[in-house]
């Protein structure tokens, strides 16, 4: 069965304390892995797409990496404005939709 599992469910960091979020996936064929940010009461906001193992993407304090079984979202020196839920989603071969994980709720404390 295809699955996307994110861990931890929730993460509290002090401002400046770097950490990583994990997304493990089991799909029959991966066309792309997506990271989104979701603020409370808002729609997901696109961050990154990764297509193949070994690929890395960076944007400001965020860096996403991909292996054949999982992806990491590394947050370097986070700020309070990075507080949000981070969603991982996979685009599977033969499908025209995204399959989401349950997300990691990140809180960065000043």
């Amino acid at each position, binding site marked *: 069965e295809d699955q996307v599992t994110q861990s931890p469910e929730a993460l509290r960091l002090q401002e400046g304390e770097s950490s990583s979020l994990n997304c493990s996936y089991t799909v029959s064929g991966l066309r792309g892995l997506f990271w*989104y940010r979701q603020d409370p009461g808002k*729609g997901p906001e*696109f961050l990154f797409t990764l297509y193949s193992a070994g690929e890395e993407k960076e944007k400001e304090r965020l860096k996403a990496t991909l292996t054949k079984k999982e992806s990491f979202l590394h947050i370097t020196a986070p700020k309070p404005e990075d507080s949000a839920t981070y*969603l991982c989603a996979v*685009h599977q071969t033969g499908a025209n*939709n995204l399959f989401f*994980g349950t997300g990691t709720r990140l809180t960065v404390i000043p």
Partner: protein
Amino acid sequence: EPEVTQTPSHQVTQMGQEVILRCVPISNHLYFYWYRQILGQKVEFLVSFYNNEISEKSEIFDDQFSVERPDGSNFTLKIRSTKLEDSAMYFCASSSSSYLGRGGYTFGSGTRLTVV
């Protein structure tokens, strides 16, 4: 920056009533989608729409649901007879390609549907 616009932002309806959720996708996008998110749960795919027809739908999208592009700009989701379990945030999304490339989808801010 182009946006996907959804209205209303919040709708309360009585069980058994019909509701229509409205979306204005990004103007040059060709592929349209509805997703929903029950409070505290993951975002779930409902339906994709291209060239005036449904291209893919999930098990959630049963006969109670329908989608329509009534004109060149709007994209609607209708729930014929709402149930309590339809209470959720409904997100519209659009993309320029079926190959969910560089940007994936652009999501709207959602409509919070509360069925009482």
